């Protein structure tokens, strides 16, 4: 039952991504119908705590978390082609912000501060490193997560004399609504980012960075700002997530899996369009839930990563443009019109 409900809600989220892709594609037909359906789907997701089991919103919160991480990762790494492995760093900064602030401040405040802290960290990191190309950038961002984790573990142990800290909890329903709120904000941001002059500049960098620079685009600024905006969302959801964890330490907050899994989701879903990473995130979160509960019966709960690994390798080999690429190919075949045209992957 919980799978059915959360799957339906996930499809609603995929729909909202598709809706924005359509808006950005300047598709005008069926405007009223699609907008109506959008409101309906959002209402369906928002009322999940009312009609669902008590566990449904909890699972849905996790799904939305990964959707936000995957979409915000793609926001920067998709168009620019820079593979950031710093997601866990920004997410962890959000978690630790909440650990310090929750209890003394209301959630909106520490969510915003968590996002802002990650935003500022990303500005600094971006200014330092976005001149590193390709693989160096990936290595650096990965190293950053580990550096923060180890330094923080040292501080916990030797300066404050703790291992980790307790986080003031917030009830599951409230967490669900905050998560959903950040999702809506992310969708709106993605829309305006893409539609604006800034989005055009970002796309030009993705297509040919050197040509963009020589055409007057301030490539460094555009990249840093996009990096920081995507980090804002990672930090904000980190702060929300912390209240669900109750206890955090550097190992929990800066777990590199929070870097890898959203990347895997985005690759699997496809990065050319907004709804790609949403499909990937929803699919993998549900799969993970299913596998961990099934495998847990045999005491093998953590083995889900084995399946993720197999799917990742297969997806890279056989679906270079992700689920989105497959869907595009199928719809084009169905329409029987024009040459097969795919969104470039990066």
């Amino acid at each position, binding site marked *: 039952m919980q799978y059915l409900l959360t799957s339906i809600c996930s499809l609603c989220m995929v729909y909202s991504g598709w809706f924005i892709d359509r808006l950005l594609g300047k598709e005008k037909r069926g405007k009223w119908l699609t907008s109506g359906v959008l409101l309906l789907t959002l209402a369906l997701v928002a009322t999940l705590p009312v009609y669902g089991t008590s566990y449904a919103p909890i699972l849905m919160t996790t799904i939305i978390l990964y959707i936000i991480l995957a979409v915000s990762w793609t926001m920067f790494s998709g168009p620019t*082609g820079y*593979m950031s492995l710093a997601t866990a760093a920004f997410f962890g900064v959000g978690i630790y912000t909440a650990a310090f602030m929750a209890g003394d401040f209301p959630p909106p405040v520490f969510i915003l501060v968590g996002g802002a802290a990650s935003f500022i960290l990303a500005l600094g990191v971006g200014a*330092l*490193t976005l001149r*590193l190309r*390709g*693989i*160096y950038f*990936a*290595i*650096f961002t*990965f*190293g*950053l997560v*580990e*550096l923060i984790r*180890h*330094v923080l*573990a*040292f501080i916990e*142990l*030797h300066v404050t004399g703790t291992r980790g800290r307790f986080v003031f909890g917030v009830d599951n329903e409230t967490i669900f609504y905050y998560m959903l709120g950040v999702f809506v904000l992310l969708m709106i941001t993605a829309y305006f980012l893409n539609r604006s002059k800034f989005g055009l500049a970002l796309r030009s960098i993705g297509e040919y960075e050197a040509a963009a620079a020589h055409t007057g685009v301030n490539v460094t600024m555009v990249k840093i700002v996009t990096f920081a905006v995507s980090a804002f969302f990672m930090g904000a959801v980190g702060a929300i997530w912390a209240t669900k964890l109750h206890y955090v330490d550097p190992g929990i907050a800066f777990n*590199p899996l929070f870097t*890898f899994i959203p*990347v*895997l989701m985005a*690759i699997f879903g496809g990065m050319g369009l907004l709804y790609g990473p949403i499909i990937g995130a929803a699919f993998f979160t549900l799969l993970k839930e299913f596998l961990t509960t099934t495998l847990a019966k045999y005491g*093998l709960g*953590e*083995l889900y*990563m*084995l399946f*993720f*690994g*197999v*799917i*990742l*390798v297969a997806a*890279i*080999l056989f679906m*270079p443009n992700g689920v989105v690429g497959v869907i595009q190919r199928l719809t084009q075949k169905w329409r029987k019109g024009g040459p097969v045209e795919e969104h470039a*992957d*990066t």
Partner: protein
Amino acid sequence: MFASILDIIIDGLFMGGIYALLAMGLSLQYGVARVLNVSHGEFIMVGAFLTLALHTGLGMNPILTLVIIGPIIFIVGYLLHRTLFSALLKSSPSTEVFEGKSLLATFGLLFIIQNVAVLIWGSATRSYSYLASPVEIAGAITSLNRMVTLGITIAIGLAFYIFLARSRMGKAIRAAAQDPATAGIMGVNINNVLALCFGFGLLMAGIAGVLYSMCFGFYTTMGLGFTIIAIIVVVLGGLGSIPGSFIGGFILGIVGQITNTFEAELTLAAYYFIFIVLLLVRPKGIMGK
């Protein structure tokens, strides 16, 4: 005081030898085959567990297991490149795209290998005792297995360097590293060379695993930590520079021992710190051109 400095240097050299092997392997994979293999460290783990199986199961001498484990891991690497990576290479429009795709594919391999290992060997720390008798060198105390390990790593490092510098295959590898397109025209079977390099790279990790298992406990999830160290060393030595990786390994080993003596918890943080500063100040590494 003198003895303790010597202790640090000897243990640093010993760890450095392991790092150097690992890093040379990674350097081959990245420098020539353009695959930044994050599953590299998994093969040190696999090497260690295979040694354990052969040693405790069949009573083989751990050093002799090299003769069996080495070729197995080499063949695995060769076949991996021939199937997975060469397919990715074919479907990638540019080197940059290939680097990104292959990096992600190796993340997939990492998850697969690690979880299969957990399935087979569980997650407890394992070890066995071999040549653990103490040795004294100028007042510093170390163990025989460490000295043997250091000796083997240096021997392999030098042998491989000579292989690259002198042999026909070594020349083909160096040609492929510099300019794959031209090397292809010159009659080098480029796919074969790349696959060989990938195989040799994994072989280094496997050997490091056999040696490591003689001296320390090991567990199935330790791979990523070693991969990260190998990446740091490779960047330290200059991406793609084999001698750079070799020297870089020893430097990191000694730095690690020094921080370890003063503040053990900061060892990894110190590695990352060196690494990040180096990336910012001199991304080409100490030996990079």
